[in-house]
């Protein structure tokens, strides 16, 4: 049993955290995050040079990481800085390309940006209800349908698409320039896109991609959990600073027990969130990955909303302003719940496991 990070991961965490703190502060982030392309291409390249993308893939796929703990380290650092770069799509795409045995040099070096399109308007999370279809045409395939909430899709060069082929979800590679892409900034910053496919040419990567897609969704959800842990810790720290310095009735408001106990409850839920994320990371390659990832995403969905709402409330009016960073952290905490399966969706997956056993 060892809850310390390995030396390599600690170094990656430190360098990424330092880089984001120095070069990507929240005011710069806010300039970037809410307008297309919702990221900073120069900074993306610098982050790739630091190894943030190579950490996403295992050695035999050209990276130097690829485990749940590697994802955890990268995304927690991103969360602490509230970073809007399209790393989620890269992480999920890398997972899929490793499973498909595809060359991902361009992804890991940062030369090309990838996004993953699984969800649809009426089935945002469910793999078994994909309506998008693939048809053989000539040497390749064409895809038709609409893919929804494609994170990083607004900035992607390549999109990996899940579409039905012979009754099974298959994985295809689509050049962004061949599809109709409606990109948009999100409420909490960062970008996504609706991807419209109409006999769009596509290269088949995996004919039966159910397991690979399920794994990529698990990895993506785990990444979001780790990101949330980073966001929650910073939000809590800012709130504590405020409680120590803001005076009302002649005393720092942190002297009021009604606020102290609520701040403790936030701490408790953040510790629980970190714990369940560690557990999910350790199980990511195992047979029960979906179960533990769902546990993590459910708990963190609840905890993140608590931390967001309580931080705003305990600050009072100032946290309602665009200028004060907590507002942006809080938005991220609330909105990430709906990415790759919300609290209820993941609870129902844990329930299904209970009911089946």
């Amino acid at each position, binding site marked *: *049993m060892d*809850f310390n990070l390995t030396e390599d991961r600690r170094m990656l965490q430190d360098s990424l955290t330092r880089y984001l703190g120095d070069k990507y502060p929240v005011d710069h982030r806010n300039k970037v995050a809410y307008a297309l392309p919702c990221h900073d291409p120069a900074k993306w390249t610098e982050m790739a040079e630091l190894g943030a993308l190579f950490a996403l893939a295992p050695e035999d796929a050209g990276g130097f990481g690829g485990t749940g703990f590697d994802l955890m380290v990268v995304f927690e650092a991103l969360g602490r800085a509230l970073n809007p770069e399209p790393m989620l799509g890269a992480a999920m795409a890398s997972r899929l390309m490793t499973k498909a045995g595809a060359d991902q040099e361009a992804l890991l070096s940062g030369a090309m940006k990838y996004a993953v399109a699984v969800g649809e308007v009426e089935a945002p999370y469910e793999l078994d209800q994909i309506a998008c279809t693939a048809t053989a045409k000539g040497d390749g395939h064409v895809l038709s349908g609409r893919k929804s909430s494609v994170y990083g899709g607004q900035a992607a060069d390549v999109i990996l698409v899940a579409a039905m082929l012979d009754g099974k979800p298959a994985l295809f590679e689509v050049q962004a320039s061949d599809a109709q892409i409606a990109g948009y900034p999100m409420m909490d910053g960062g970008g996504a896109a609706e991807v419209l496919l109409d006999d769009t040419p596509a290269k088949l990567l995996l004919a039966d991609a159910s397991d690979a897609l399920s794994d990529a969704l698990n990895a993506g959800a785990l990444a979001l959990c780790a990101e949330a842990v980073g966001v929650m810790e910073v939000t809590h720290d800012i709130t504590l600073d405020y409680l120590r310095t803001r005076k009302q009735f002649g005393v720092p408001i942190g002297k009021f027990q009604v606020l102290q106990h609520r701040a403790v*409850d936030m701490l408790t839920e953040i510790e629980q969130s*970190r714990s369940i994320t560690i557990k999910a990371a350790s199980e990511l390659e195992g047979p029960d990955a979906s179960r533990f990832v769902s546990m993590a995403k459910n708990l963190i969905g609840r905890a993140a909303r608590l931390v967001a709402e309580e931080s705003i409330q305990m600050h009072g009016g100032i946290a309602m302003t665009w200028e004060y960073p907590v507002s942006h952290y809080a938005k991220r905490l609330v909105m990430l719940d709906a990415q790759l399966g919300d609290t209820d969706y993941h609870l129902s997956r844990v*329930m299904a496991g209970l*009911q089946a056993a």
Partner: protein
Amino acid sequence: MDLSFSAEDNAFREEVRSYLAENLPKQISDAVRNGTEQTKEMAEEWHAILNRKGWLATTWGVEFGGPGWTPVQKHIFEEECCRAYAPRIVPFGLNMLGPVLQAFGSKEQQDYYLPRILDGTDWWCQGYSEPGAGSDLASLKTRAVRDGDEYVINGQKTWTTLGQHANKIFCLCRTDPEAKQQEGISFILVDLDTPGIEMRPIRLIEGGHEVNEVFFTDVRVPVTNLVGEENKGWTIAKFLLTHERTGIAGVGFSMQSLEEVKALARKIRRGGRPLIQDPLFAARIAQAEIDLEAMKITNLRMLFKAQQQGAPGPETSILKIKGTVIHQELKDLARRALGPVAAPFPGSITDGNIMFGPEGTSNNAARYFNNRKTSIFGGSNEIQRNILTKTMLEL
């Protein structure tokens, strides 16, 4: 980062598991499983069995007869004991007074009392709380006045758990009423046979007799029964608070309760289907299971830290708060699962032909009510929040 236990720890777990399988008497584990009130005889029998193996005083130093386990091994032992439905070790002598005497007691006190705790000669109980001193323990009023070679004790203690089985009590008494609250308190050992002591039962919410109130009227105790220095008892009280923290999360008990609830929800039928197929009930179980899964890791993380730093830190208050709330939720589910069948007062249905709910569940409502205590005792969850506010949040 590695969540697996070492090969040595796994071997230790196997050793504990097979030992329990061979040595835990079935009538004792059955009583624990069914939640019937534990008798004194059962506790004494189980203590004696563990003592023969050298596994009774798990928190004691090796030189005093402890097994010399690491925090992780203690954790494994507790987890396996829960899994096997072993009774909880009665903590007052073994896990409270024992470590206090080892840290603060005189050589004479150690030589006399420690063996008697191990072999069961003495059953200790705790005289801390008073009617006017609960969370604000330092405001306690029970007086011990020096008179020659004796202290004369007057006052009242309460919430004395299992005092009805005890022959001795350790007390916090005020020896200097002029000093600042925390500085005038002493830790004194008292024989319950001493004239002037009266113990009365307190009937609890579910009807059981678990705690007592103890009245002291001119009780004369030799000054040699003082532990540590006079007026330094608060240091000992705090020592107990920080050192008696293994197993504070009660993860093993919650795991036990979760399995019970799952089994119950599969067995009980409601509306023509097993209760577990009711989405609302299944959702409640799932959420409790998720919180417990996180708690297991939180517990291990703090254990790991304690093992590295030598002692548990103040963050263990998180374990108390969250661990008790999760356990209470599971006890609530065990009650809810029965629906109206949870209603009969325990023992009220004497006709053996009338089966009322699955076997072993007749105490589920009682157990739910009894377990409301866990967020109150040992420093209420609100006191734990105060501790965390000071130590972790620095507000």
